[in-house]
């Protein structure tokens, strides 16, 4: 029997002022009913464009070749209005960022009901319905739709759907919005569901639940699901088959256990190896280089980053080899690749190796032994040598009163984001702060860096009381560097890379020749070539931008660097390279790190000690390995389970 969806030699290209860019280049794949196919690759590999082309949303790109065959119909030949019939009712797509894809002015129940309405009344709409004059539309079925919406919300695992059906998107968490999106996609009972990065914006525990729900859906309703992700771990747990994309081509495809357990293509090997797992250790293996701006016209797209690449690889298209039943690889040097298993690592210098091997022993453990709950660690602090950076009894409350009138009437409502948190970090140490989104960890970072003024409590640097940004002295500001979560947001789009990095130096009064030299030095330190110095932020990838942000943070040689979710906006392979880089910089410059993340894998790898936050409080703290191996607080247990339990948490 034919598969439900089959794509043959699909080509999608974009017209730009620099000429035509081929985003998808002869990609072929197929999905069967009830099957979950994972489409994996780094950002820029063409996976999202492929998915959008299936939905007929490829613009501003254009399909320039190949076929998309769906259940006996050729989708590329359909007119836009004919495609509209398929969209939603047969094919549905859930986009990456739930907070921007839901319309903020309608409640989620209405948005789910809308897709029910659109697909139910096909054909028998009255003229008045077309005019969208709300007083005249037939609302007799609206009650039914509301009931169905509640059912759907229940089906995707939204608790209390009866009340949440009336909630507006901003009243729901990211995970809930994502589920509401899935519910609305399922409303029309599609045969193929495309999910773009279903979990990237979510924290670990929520990820696990959503993935569990998706796989249940596939088995229960016989829906085909196409999952797009850069995280081969997600795909490994969820999918039946996997297709790996690079440079617009599908370079390896096969059953998930074959591809993930014994990958053949060097790129797939790299993707699999750079995952951060429970037994990863520093330095992490990485894929050398980064996705080039423009793929070569001929030859294997991966050749420029592949250590096995030969002249033949660069000059002619690689052959597609069938390794096993259903397992196909496009690589011309398979024998050479197999001979050098496992994937070589980035060779670290000898001194670095030595340094990393001694890392698990933190230089000091101020917070006493493990396990310990609550914040009664201040006593233990004083026994050790004085900590470098510490927060005492920090509390931050936000005013949530609805209006000025409420305030006058004395109806003051506050939200306690951080609740008497005491923590400290010693020189050369790395403190990890873990927690789900909404646990107050980012507010804590803003308190420590001085961007927010604490409602209560004090912050000490090297025993000296420091205030907020506006009251800190230049020296105090210089001592703390900060790297933020979203690199696109943290660098002024108008400045060149050189100007962005130079900013703290210029501010500190360095002369032009001095700072130019220092910027080159810093670019070198963060392993960014000097050719990037004159580029602007939009010409850089997320990983490269994050390097710029790191360079800026360490420009004035701070003593402490605070990282607020430094990796969560990045691809897995980029994450691994950056983690290695952070470690290397720490060793070289003798820095103290505070790393805030929802990703246990990252924290475990980089931190000596961890503090777990839940609901504004630190609920557990201690040495990184110990906390993760023997968690005592129920929340830590849940976090660890979600991260290590291979995403198969029962719901």
């Amino acid at each position, binding site marked *: 029997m034919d598969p439900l969806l089959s794509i043959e030699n699909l080509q999608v290209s*974009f017209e*730009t*002022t*620099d000429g035509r*860019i081929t985003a998808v280049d002869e990609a072929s794949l197929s999905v069967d009913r009830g099957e979950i196919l994972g489409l994996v690759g780094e950002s820029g590999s063409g996976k999202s464009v492929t998915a959008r082309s299936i939905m007929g949303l490829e613009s*501003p790109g254009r399909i320039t070749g190949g076929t998309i065959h769906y259940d006996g119909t050729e989708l590329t030949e359909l007119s836009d209005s004919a495609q509209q019939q398929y969209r939603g009712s047969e094919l549905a797509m859930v986009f990456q960022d739930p907070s921007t894809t839901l319309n903020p002015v309608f409640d989620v129940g209405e948005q789910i009901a809308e897709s029910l309405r659109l697909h139910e009344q096909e054909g028998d709409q009255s003229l008045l319905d077309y005019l969208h004059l709300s007083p005249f539309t037939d609302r007799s079925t609206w009650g039914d739709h509301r009931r169905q919406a509640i059912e759907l919300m229940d089906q995707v695992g939204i608790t209390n759907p009866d009340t949440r059906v009336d909630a507006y998107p901003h009243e729901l968490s990211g995970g809930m919005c994502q589920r509401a999106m899935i519910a609305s996609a399922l409303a029309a009972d599609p045969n193929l569901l495309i999910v773009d990065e279903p979990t990237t914006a979510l924290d670990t525990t929520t990820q696990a639940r959503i993935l569990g729900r998706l796989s249940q859906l596939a088995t229960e309703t016989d829906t085909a699901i196409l999952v797009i992700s850069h995280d081969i771990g997600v795909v490994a747990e969820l999918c039946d088959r996997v297709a790996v994309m690079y440079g617009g081509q599908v370079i390896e495809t096969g059953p998930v256990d074959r591809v993930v357990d014994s990958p053949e293509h060097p790129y797939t090997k790299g993707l699999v190896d750079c995952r951060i797992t429970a037994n990863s250790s520093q330095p992490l293996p990485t894929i050398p280089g980064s996705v080039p*701006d*423009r793929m070569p016209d001929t030859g294997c797209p991966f050749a420029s980053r592949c250590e096995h690449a030969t002249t033949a690889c660069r000059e002619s298209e690689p052959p597609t080899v069938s390794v096993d039943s259903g397992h196909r690889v496009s690589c011309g040097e398979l024998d050479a690749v197999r001979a050098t298993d496992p994937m070589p690592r980035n060779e670290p210098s000898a001194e670095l190796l030595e340094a990393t091997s001694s890392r698990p022993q933190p230089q000091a453990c101020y917070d006493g032994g493990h396990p310990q709950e609550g914040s009664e660690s201040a006593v233990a602090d004083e026994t050790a040598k004085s900590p470098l950076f510490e927060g005492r009894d920090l509390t931050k409350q936000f005013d949530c009163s609805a209006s000025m009138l409420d305030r006058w009437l004395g109806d003051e409502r506050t939200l306690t984001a951080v609740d008497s948190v005491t923590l400290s970090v010693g020189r050369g140490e790395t403190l990890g702060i873990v927690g789900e989104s909404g646990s107050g960890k980012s507010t804590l970072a803003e308190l420590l*860096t*001085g*961007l927010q003024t604490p409602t209560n409590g004090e912050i000490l640097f090297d025993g000296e009381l420091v205030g907020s*940004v*506006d009251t*800190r002295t*230049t020296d105090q*500001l*210089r001592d*703390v*560097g*900060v790297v*933020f*979560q*979203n690199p696109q*947001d*943290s*660098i*002024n*789009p*108008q*400045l*060149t890379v050189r100007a962005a990095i130079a*900013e*703290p130096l210029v*501010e*500190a009064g360095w002369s032009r020749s001095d700072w*130019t030299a220092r910027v080159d030095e810093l670019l070198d330190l963060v392993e960014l070539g*000097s*050719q990037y*110095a*004159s580029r602007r932020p*939009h*010409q850089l990838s997320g990983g490269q931008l994050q390097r710029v*942000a790191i360079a*800026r943070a360490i420009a*004035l040689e701070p003593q402490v660097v605070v990282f607020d979710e430094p990796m969560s906006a990045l691809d897995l392979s980029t994450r691994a390279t950056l983690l290695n880089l952070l470690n290397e910089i720490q060793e070289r410059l003798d820095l103290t790190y505070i790393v805030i993340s929802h990703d246990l894998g990252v924290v475990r790898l980089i931190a000596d000690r961890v503090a777990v936050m839940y609901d504004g409080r630190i609920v557990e703290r201690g040495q990184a390995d110990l906390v993760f191996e023997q968690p005592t607080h129920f929340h830590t247990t849940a976090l660890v389970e979600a991260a290590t339990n291979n995403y198969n948490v029962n719901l």
Partner: protein
Amino acid sequence: MTIAESTRSDAIQRRLRSGIEIVTGTLRRNPLTLLGAVIVCFLGVLAVVGPVVSPYDPAAQNLANRLRPPSLAHPLGTDRFGRDLLTRIVYGARFSLGIGLAVTAIRVVVGTAIGLMSGYAGGWVDEALMRLVDIQLAFPGLVLALVVAGILGPSLRNLLIALAVVGWSTYARVVRGSVLSIKERRYVDAARLIGTPRRRLFRRHLLPNVISPVIVIATLNLGTVVLATAGLSFIGLGAQPPTPEWGTMLAGGRQHMRQAWWIVNAPGAAIMLTVLGFNLLGDGLRDMLDPRQQTRIEVV
């Protein structure tokens, strides 16, 4: 150093090239922008060099030649005092463009400053400034200008003051809105964290990121100001005769409309052409400075 210099000039060239690409791309999609640019440039050149090449004195009366229709000697004819209309229109361009630019410049500077302050400071400063804007927006702009010009007395200088006083609120609103979103961006936090003084923060991080809508509004606004200047002069609150101002010329020619159509049509056409030119250019600029447009080109 030579390498650094060469990469620097390379970068400048690249930037220039991408700038030119955006401009030519917009012109290709929308040739009317080119028309607007040509009209504006033409008027600008006319205002600067016109008086030098014109053989007549704009104020010299020659009653023997009054109300002459367009001819070779007087391409646009003469008015009721026998003055050459083309010369007067060319001189008038100086007033119209000059006042337009001056008024718009004052509006932009005042409005942007107030918007920046209001958006960045927040709190009661914001409340106070925005209520001021609200009050100003509650009056129709031209009527308010009329009142101000009426109080100050009719002259070109007072007209300039009157128009500048009423128009800055749009800029304040737009800038405040952009600042509100941009000050939440992390790069502003990052700048504060390295101790950037406030003035530098405004100049380097806020202003360049809010300025494109201001440029667009200012261009569209130039046309309106030219129109308002002519309008107020027409009813006698602006330039006084014999100043060759287009609105005043219209007013002067009104009574001879029936015998000498060219007296009103020439300044009328000049006003229309100017406003049209600025509007077309403004629309084109909006396309060029639209961030979505830039991402489309830089999608690579």
